[in-house]
């Protein structure tokens, strides 16, 4: 099989959202001696871009987006360890994302994570009901550029402020941007707690994340 065939097959596994196939094609490519970085950039990323386009045009729905990202992750787990020391996968930025303590509303947060992943961010989703300290620990662990905190309850919004305070206390506030969201939050709230930005929905969250990491606007969601 030619290199181009491998890239196309990898892209296809992402388009089909087929985790198992993604892993096995990735393994075959590595065994055949293909360059892992090329497999990522010309196979997986290309596949994810096509998924993004199909989602933006209304042909794909959320499950295709999520399953595509999962297939990509499965193949990455094989390809990343095969990168040469001099190589690094390009990501737009590393994001720690979670729903704050006391709050179990996680659909919106999961959606934000999915769209960020599809757009080329590396997302560490720490789940729901997470205290400020867990956000800070995850930032340290992943060397994140961005923290995203979701809150759906008026009683849990204050944890978003706490995260900012704890990042300051840990000496991390200058190295990480903070974005907040969730139905009861607003730009004025974000300003009042010193967050770097607020988004009303998942597409807005992608645009904001790009802005905060100095990436150009996303071609798919840019109309």
């Amino acid at each position, binding site marked *: 099989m030619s290199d181009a065939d491998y890239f196309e097959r990898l892209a296809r596994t992402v388009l089909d959202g087929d985790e198992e196939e993604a892993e096995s094609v990735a393994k075959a490519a590595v065994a055949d001696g293909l360059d892992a970085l090329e497999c990522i950039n010309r196979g997986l990323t290309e596949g994810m871009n096509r998924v993004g386009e199909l*989602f933006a045009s*209304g042909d794909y*729905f*959320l499950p295709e987006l999520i399953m595509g990202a999962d297939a990509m992750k499965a193949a990455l787990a094989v390809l990343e360890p095969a990168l040469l020391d001099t190589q690094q996968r390009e990501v737009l930025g590393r994001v720690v994302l979670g729903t704050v303590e006391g709050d179990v509303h996680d*659909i919106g947060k999961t959606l934000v994570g999915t769209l960020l992943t599809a757009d080329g961010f590396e997302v560490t989703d720490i789940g729901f009901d997470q205290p400020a300290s867990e956000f800070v620990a995850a930032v340290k662990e992943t060397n994140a550029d961005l923290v995203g905190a979701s809150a759906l309850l*008026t*009683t849990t919004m204050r944890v978003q402020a706490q995260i900012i305070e704890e990042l300051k206390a840990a000496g991390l506030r200058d190295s990480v941007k903070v974005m907040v969201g969730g139905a*009861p939050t607003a730009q004025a709230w974000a300003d009042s707690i010193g967050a770097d930005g607020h988004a009303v*929905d*998942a597409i807005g969250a992608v645009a904001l994340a790009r802005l905060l990491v100095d990436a150009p606007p996303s071609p798919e969601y840019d109309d």
Partner: protein
Amino acid sequence: MFSETPPIAPIAPAYRLRILTDEQLDRFKAATFEILERTGVLVPSERALKIYAEHGADVDFENQIVRLSSDVILGALAKAPRHYTMGGRTRAFDLDLSKPVTYEATDGTGTKTIDYVTRELRASIKDDVAKSARVADYLSAISFYWPMVSAQDHPQAPSLHELDAAFNNTLKHVQTPTVVEEATARYAIEMARVISGTEEAMRAHPPLSLLICTIAPLAQDEGAMDAALTAAEAGIPVGFMAMPNTGSTAPATIAGTVAVGDAEIVSALVLIQMAFPGAPVYHSFMPGMTHPRTGAYYGHEARVYAMGVELAHMWGVPTLAGTFGGPAQSVGWESGLGGDLASFLSALCGGEMGSGMGLLDGSTLLHPEALVLDAELYHSVRVNAAELDTSADQLALDVIHTVGPRGHYLRERHTRDYFHKMEFSEVLHVPDVDGSYREPVEMARRQTDWILDNHHPEPLSDSQKAELTRILEAAENELS
């Protein structure tokens, strides 16, 4: 000086409807048995896990998973009362759930308000709860009251301030969806006791009930389950509402969504009956639909909410049906969609309670006119469901013979009398000076303003007010 609270006007359907066949109900029952026996539910509360274990459930303490056999489920649910009474501040406002009627409530608990006076959009505050409770107190469509928005200006104990504003401004039963921690529940019960006067009176006619959400898929909330147990012990009715979202927190089919939601509710009802046999509980199935592209939450077709009524009755408990409420962001064509149909179907299926009037934007926005407009739809449902009077006087044969062919009925005493007995809307078909009809939204605004200017329900006694204030202070000290 205070004004009388008009009597409530529940829906009293004269005819009935079945949406699910017996075979379909059996399939749902079997699905709930299978889900609870095989996969189980996640219950992150030590107190709850112990109760389940002591009463025959299979409990995996390490993973906090509870599995229930059909025998254990049926044994526990057999103890749940099919009917009970939820109290108002006075007996005239009691909700007797054994009556063949449907009582409906406001929606809650939103987070934003369009100010009744300035019409500015802002975060909700306690005074919005007080004002909306006063409007609800006046409207006969509203049989019981959910605090409509959050008291965000009282961040130490918002849910208790919501109750304070509610109890002070309506004589109707109050149901809260925001008392979801054990400590808060204790104070809420104290407040209910103040309203009732004595422990016995509170148990006989509880002026407060709790609404606790289960967490789709197949989980319960730690704090909320502890709050539910505390309330049940005190005789405060507790309902469990499942909100599975079709396509995200439930399968992308209606039957699959019912299966997940019903299993969650049943697992919670069972817990309460294990701990406090005979405690008043209710079942509430309130699923949403996931938009396949935005993920946003919106309502299902109306019949899905009425199906919840039939599920509740299958398990032998009363129901709270999701009736009004939708994604519209302002009053207009969209805000009127669906609520009346869901209300109608739920009433015809025999639902005891329904809620959802008066909020917009996915139950997050209090809009000044929305409650009066929804009340208008409610009354059209009530009239359509009511028995038609075919008595001799209504058949009016005498007057038909008298007028005979041609002629008209306008000068008949019978016509004059009956025109005055008919219910005419103060919102719809109100003539303007030029012969056209006035805008319903404008009329709703006038009615709302009139209520706020003129309706001041009987206040609590000074000692009751002082007691509530003391409880709020104690709660704020403990909870802050």
